[in-house]
């Protein structure tokens, strides 16, 4: 593509007076015999190359930063997932520990109740045996207090039986109530 000499001079003076020049690929298709306009084109091409190199460098830096940001975002996502998993594990561990604690408390409660029942039953049986032995001795030795001891023995035996059933009933009630609570909790 060729321009007239007048146009070439106009472009040169526009550059000298106002610093405005032709840029871009148009410079690559211009042809001329004029030395000043050849210089004009050559300077324009050099300037264009410089600008493109600069832009290329910046674009590459931005690309690099984008890649880094993307990598960091992926790492962040990974870390977030790990944290979520760790929190879920901790929650599960806490729940397990609470369940274990509850189980241990119940176990110790039952053991305590078992011991109380055992002791109570031994006492009941002991009192029953002792009273029966006293009543039997009074009967065999011909003591005058047999009537009193007989009434006492029957009263005492009745009370002891009632109390023992009461204890067993209370224990069974506590047991069923606890089982019911724990099954509702599980649901």
């Amino acid at each position: 593509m060729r321009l007239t000499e007048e146009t070439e001079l106009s472009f040169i003076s526009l550059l000298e007076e106002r610093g405005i020049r032709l840029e871009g690929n148009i410079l690559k298709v211009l042809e001329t015999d004029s030395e000043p306009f050849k210089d004009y084109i050559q300077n324009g091409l050099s300037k264009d190359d410089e600008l493109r190199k600069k832009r290329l460098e910046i674009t590459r830096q931005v690309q690099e930063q984008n890649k880094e940001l993307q990598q960091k975002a992926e790492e962040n996502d990974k870390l977030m997932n790990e944290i979520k998993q760790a929190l879920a594990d901790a929650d599960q561990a806490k729940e397990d520990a609470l369940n274990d604690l509850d189980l241990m408390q119940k176990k110790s409660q039952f053991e305590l109740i078992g011991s109380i029942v055992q002791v109570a039953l031994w006492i009941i049986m002991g009192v029953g045996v002792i009273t029966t032995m006293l009543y039997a001795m009074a009967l065999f030795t011909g003591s005058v207090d047999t009537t009193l001891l007989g009434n006492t023995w029957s009263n005492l035996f009745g009370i002891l039986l009632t109390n023992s059933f009461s204890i067993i009933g209370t224990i069974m009630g506590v047991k069923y109530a606890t089982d019911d609570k724990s099954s509702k909790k599980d649901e």
Partner: protein
Amino acid sequence: MINSILLVDDENLFHLVFEDACSLLDITLNLESISSADQAANMFRDWQGKPKMKPDCVFVDLNIIGSSFDGIELIRKINFEYGNGVVIGIISSSEDKQEIDKAIEAGAQFWIVKSDDIEPRLEQFKEDYEGYCNRINPFKVYV
């Protein structure tokens, strides 16, 4: 110099890199960059029967995010559905052998590996371009 080039790549920053590299290497004076394989397919469909409108050379990214199909499918469509006649190949950061084989089957003529230093590969491609135009060059991977 290649008369006209079409670049199909979803990464807009790479458009700038490619444009600057092409200008610095005097590869072309007419470069159009688009981000969608669908858009490219539509353009080629519209250009059917209008060979003058078609670009001389097409560079296609392998994975074009946001498009209905990938770069290999686009090449297949351009070659087999919309009529051949352009030099076409892949420009991608991938070097997957299976993908390269698929690209060859789809009719790609070259595979340029996209990296920070793309200018030497484009320069080599520029030297080989005539061979691709005349369909005498075999498929080549520019690494």
